[in-house]
């Protein structure tokens, strides 16, 4: 069955007509044409499809699109502002915190959510926040470094 949902998508009030059984990740990728959210495992284990729901990180393969009704959804496509990259994105580039890049959107969404609730995380808190985002390339070292650097940039407000 299809139904209408109303929600905020990357800051824009949005209305969509969706099948009940469509997952959020497929809805975003196929219906909203936002392919930045990746499908890595389809069962909530890898974190590649992480988005923010009301500021909290969720794996969008474990959520139905209809559940977005009346909520605020932010994807990797929605964190740059007016063409300027988010500090987390910028630090990922500068610190070489990515290789194949497939986990990167989800990783960045978990990091942005973390910094939204904790602007001064310890290294452990950073690692804990991205423990649900698997990366097979980097060993996480430069990702942790980039998130720490982004936190500092945000705190300094530059």
């Amino acid at each position, binding site marked *: 069955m299809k139904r209408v949902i109303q929600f905020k998508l990357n800051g824009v009030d949005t209305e969509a007509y969706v099948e009940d059984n469509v997952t959020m990740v497929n809805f975003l990728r196929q219906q909203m044409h936002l392919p930045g959210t990746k*499908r890595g495992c389809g069962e909530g284990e890898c974190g590649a499809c992480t988005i923010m729901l009301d500021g909290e990180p969720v794996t969008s393969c474990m959520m139905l699109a209809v559940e977005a009704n009346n909520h605020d959804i932010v994807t990797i496509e929605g964190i740059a502002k007016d063409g300027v990259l988010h500090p987390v994105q*910028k630090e990922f580039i500068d610190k070489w915190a990515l290789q194949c890049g497939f986990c990167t959107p989800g990783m960045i969404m978990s990091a942005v959510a973390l910094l939204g609730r904790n602007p001064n995380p310890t290294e452990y808190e*950073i690692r804990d926040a991205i423990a649900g985002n698997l990366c097979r390339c980097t060993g996480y070292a430069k990702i942790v470094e980039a998130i720490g650097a982004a936190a500092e940039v945000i705190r300094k407000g530059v």
Partner: protein
Amino acid sequence: MAIVSKEYYAEIEKVYKKPEDYELAGKENAYVRIDAEAKVSGKAVYVDDINLPGMYYCKLVRSPYANARILKIDFTEALKVPGVKAVLTGNDFPEGRYLGCPEAFKEMADKEPLCRETVRMVGDEVAAVCAISEDAADEAARKVKVEYEPIKPVLDAFDAMGSDASAVHYPDTNNVSMYTSMEAGDVKQAFSEADYTDKYYYQTQQIVHAAMEPHGSVAKYENGEWTVWTTTQNVYVARYWIAWGLGVPESRVRAIKPVIGGGFGGKVDVFAHDLCPAKFAQMTGHPVKCILTREEVFLGTRTRHPIAFEIETAFTKEGKLLAKRCKHVLDGGAYGGSGNAANALSLIVANLPYKFDNVDMSAQRIYTNKPASGAMRGYSACQVDFAHESHMDEVAEALGIDPLELRRKNGCTPGYLSPTGLQVTSCAFDETLVTCCNEIGWDKRDELPEGKGIGLGGSCFMSGTGFPVLATPRNNSNSTLVRLNREGYATVFTGANDIGQGCDTVMTMIVAEELGLSMDEVKCVQSDTTLTPWDSGSYGSRVTFLAGNACRRAVGDAKLKLLTHWADEWGCKPEDITMKDHRVFIKSDPEKNISFKEALFSYEEKNFGRSCSGVGSFAHEGGDQQIQKTNYGNYAPAYSFSSCTAKVDVDMETGELNMEDFVFAHDCGRPLNLRAVEGQIEGSVHMGLGFTCYEECLYDEEGRHLNPTFRDYRFPTALDMPNIRTFICGEPDPEGPMGAKEAGEGTTAPVGPAIANAIAAATGVHFHSLPISPEKIWRAMKQLRETGNPHFGDEGLVEKFAAMPKLKPLQSQVHH
């Protein structure tokens, strides 16, 4: 060793930039990855992000049995699902067109695009359906009824060799997929003269690549020609096997590698998910997409070969290694493909990084009814290094020699030629050993309390496996094209396959460096069989060395043309002219100074508008085409060396393992970008730690995979990783591009033994099998307390090796 093509390219190499003038190569923070912004923005286009108008979807029907005959395939119910457009079975592909790898072993190709009569593993592809949506295709695939006649599967390599085992492929072959040997010197004599000899057993487990991007492809068919976007590490090789499987000339298939979400060797082979969408695209006239689920990636792609080892060594009492005799038994799973290289690689890496004259080694790859084993990062080296380097510590203990000293005494040195023909050029193995030991506090290791320990591992790896998979003129590995544009930029057309490691950035950097342009003034066109020249693929840690050299020769060719033009104008030699900061000039003469753009405009003015472009190629010349069959000769143009040390803290009550410190020292020649090299090393440690302590594919007695999900197949998360301290050792390699050697694969190999040796130092138990889980540590310590036996994990191997049938060499056994 002289590289003959250097003479051919001598003029071009004269205009190469001198190392003292480098502004990008080896300079930290001089540039960022060219794909970084797209990747952090969600704009990078992977295969699953390609959506074409009118696109259909393909799903594969897979076998639930590890070994069975296919009796009947019934599509009646499947065809009733709304939206289904077409179905396929093995009979829809031309007969006898088996998929394999490499071209030289085409007669050994053994994988049908879809199984016709027999399935050989759970997950083997038997049929395919095509529908207007992914959901409809999925539903229809579930409704395809396949009748099977199950046969008892063979799941263990030793069992498979037995006379009562059913044949996975060919009867009366002991299920040997391949037999390989390497011999030199007089091993018997060396053993009879040695002060110390031994015999040890080890084994490793099956693990998977787990690239975060699942495999898949999108195919379209227009004007009698296919275009296939596929998750490949080697777009030309993919094109070759796709065309072969379809039974059409290569000229009718265009293969394109978009952005790839990791490979690690798992995306070398061509699969049903490439062939079926291509066939459906032809049948329906619509583009077709097929993306595997994670479970399908576990079941139906590739794994790392489990290897069982029998290792015998002979040493003098002073610790000089005299001889090695060993047998490697590799579990090849159901198919060959890229797995055909595993034997030879396991023997090559067992010959290094130590010097010894007497070699008697064999490797046999055995078919079983499990997912096919194939190439995986640190190909064969991770398994071999775990066994041979753990063994080195046992020798040190027996001889009463410091493990570091034992390694230093026997370690490779620059210019070493192994008795089987492996030619080392630059080599800083000793420096890597000393560096990582000094950094971790090796001297104080005896003062550590019980439960804490430091371990060391060393390794050597081919810097650019020299063999290009397909048959090419002079074994050429890569050809690159560079065009200088009068609008003020350059374009590099490279087939080098970026799968995440960053080779697009490397090629762009090489061109920018040589031309004195900024990174964004060089445009990289990559990995498309119609647009870019030949490259053999991202495997064997070959890309930077082989494709990088070809790229440099290509830009050098164009640069020489341009500078020859200006040398004529200015009355000097081409090599007197400098290219820097977008300018072309003679340093000593301020009058002779123009912009890159003007320089090109003038060049084209003189040459009737003909653009200034260059072509370069690079081949490894160390052996002839026969080396893959004789195993005598030099496999690579250079070798990298690595050592690492791990400091562990084991909870003596529970067996829980905490990694306190990890130091990695690597000789990769000149690191073209330090952060990129560090990234490779950190990723290697991650994969090495997973292999050593976490990962294992488990099967039930029917050959069904028990843990094909990331919930049950766990690899290290950010919380599990230690801090890694990286050190670069050695000097620029004389033949590497701008002095570089490999950094991607060899770095995974020493991680396992360093951790295993640290655990041995902490607990007193030498582990002879992987993974070393807390449970196994607990059991091993219990065994040590109760029986005094300090070896754990080699149970039953003595008997298995003893009972092994004397095998007939089927392939590539040659005596020297």
